């Protein structure tokens, strides 16, 4: 890898701009995502910037169990994010549809519609877990772009879902279910 590629890889890792999308979430995860940008957690230390337009973003953060109405919007927004890109599914809902499972208004989970790179389980996940997920997604994005792998080939769930914070109490069943669904 030459110097320019190394610099590009490092820059991608250091500057993840995120776009936040709600696909029918109860707003719990959305609040936690915003909390990760507040002074207490301060995701901007990692270069994270919440962008208003999906065209500017590198990482698409999706919350919610994917309602039928949201499917088209998700696919449109995913198409608008310019490559290289990554997707973070925040909360247990996009991973497994959580307590809304078998609802006829849903068309989840998220991995059915777009390739998901990182699952951040929890209902809702803690802001530090979300920040860890975004950092992980930035790494995946940079590595994938450097090796020129196609998007679909990497489906990495968060390795240790509740290692982000010792005091976090995420539900134990959701992460394993998410991991098994994503990586059969």
């Amino acid at each position, binding site marked *: 890898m030459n110097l320019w590629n190394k*610099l*590009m890889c*490092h*820059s*991608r890792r*250091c*500057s993840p*701009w995120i776009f936040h999308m709600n696909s029918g979430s109860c707003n719990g995860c959305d609040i936690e995502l915003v909390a990760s940008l507040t*002074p207490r957690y*301060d995701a*901007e*230390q990692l*270069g994270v*910037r919440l*962008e*208003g*337009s999906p*065209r*500017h973003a*590198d990482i698409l953060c999706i919350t919610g169990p994917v309602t039928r109405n949201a499917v088209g919007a998700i696919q449109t927004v995913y198409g*608008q994010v*310019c*490559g*290289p890109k990554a997707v973070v599914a925040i909360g247990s809902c996009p991973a497994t549809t959580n307590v809304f499972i078998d609802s006829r208004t849903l068309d989840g989970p998220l991995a059915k519609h777009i390739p998901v790179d990182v699952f951040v389980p929890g209902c809702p996940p803690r802001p530090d877990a979300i920040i860890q997920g975004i950092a992980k997604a930035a790494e995946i994005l940079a590595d994938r*772009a450097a090796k020129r792998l196609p998007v679909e080939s990497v489906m990495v769930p968060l390795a240790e879902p509740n290692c982000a914070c010792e005091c976090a109490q995420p539900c134990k069943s959701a992460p394993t279910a998410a991991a098994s669904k994503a990586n059969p």
Partner: protein
Amino acid sequence: MNLITALARFLIFPGLLFAIPAAWFFLWVERKAVALMQGRVGPPFMQPFFDFIKLLGKTTPPRTGIAGLLMRLWPLLAVSAAAGAVGLLPVLPSSGGFEGDLILLLALLELPSMCIIAAGFSSRSIFGEIGSAREAVLSVSYNVVFLLAIVSIAASQHTFRLEALAHLPASPLQILGVVAILFCLPAKLHLNPFSLPNAEQEIYSGPMTEYAGPELAMWELSHGLEWVAATGLVATLAAPHFTTWWLAALVFIAISFGVVLLLSIVASATARLQIDTTVRFYWQCTLIFAVLAISSALFMRFRS
């Protein structure tokens, strides 16, 4: 001014070689100052540089036809105009210049905002169009004050040569003019309380909504260069005259940095105003400064 000095000013100091790192540095200072004011740690030092490099490596959506060509053209035009404006600043003593370079500088400073207006409208995005309309209204309001302040300083000296204005002895008129320019800078740089064109909670990114990848990188760079040019203009007008070149450069950088810090602190301490409040602010309150400045300039001119 011969060709070699002109090229050296444009390419080395205060031109591209100085201005591009300074642009990234000022963007970082802005973000860091806002973060510190909010009790956060803020982005690392190299953040604007990493953002720029990352954006260069992203793909852009396909654009076809004349509208696509225009959309690719506006950011390049904005960057070159802002870089040219920085290159014109008379930082070093006896750096040359020509009669009327102040007018060229003002035109080049205005060009990026014209490009933003055009870019928003050619993107055909509803948010881009709202942002462009706001930028146009804002530009009409602050430019009256901005131009009157600069013209009054120039008129009192009977010259439109930047170097003559930079070597001006301190006078009440000059202070009045610099204060009026400082009032206009937040609107020129799209900072709070006048961050209407790119009001991200209301209209996403305004005129930049449809831009991605290298084009967006160029917009970021042109915004940074605008910072350098606008604060540099204040620095050249406010700085005392030095004959040693390194002292002049040092004072220029220090005053620019101070202005960036001041503007960032004001930006983080205020909330966004409505468009009609902003227009009223410039047409009713700040215009007083400009009228005072221009009348005292005319008075000085008739006395001399």
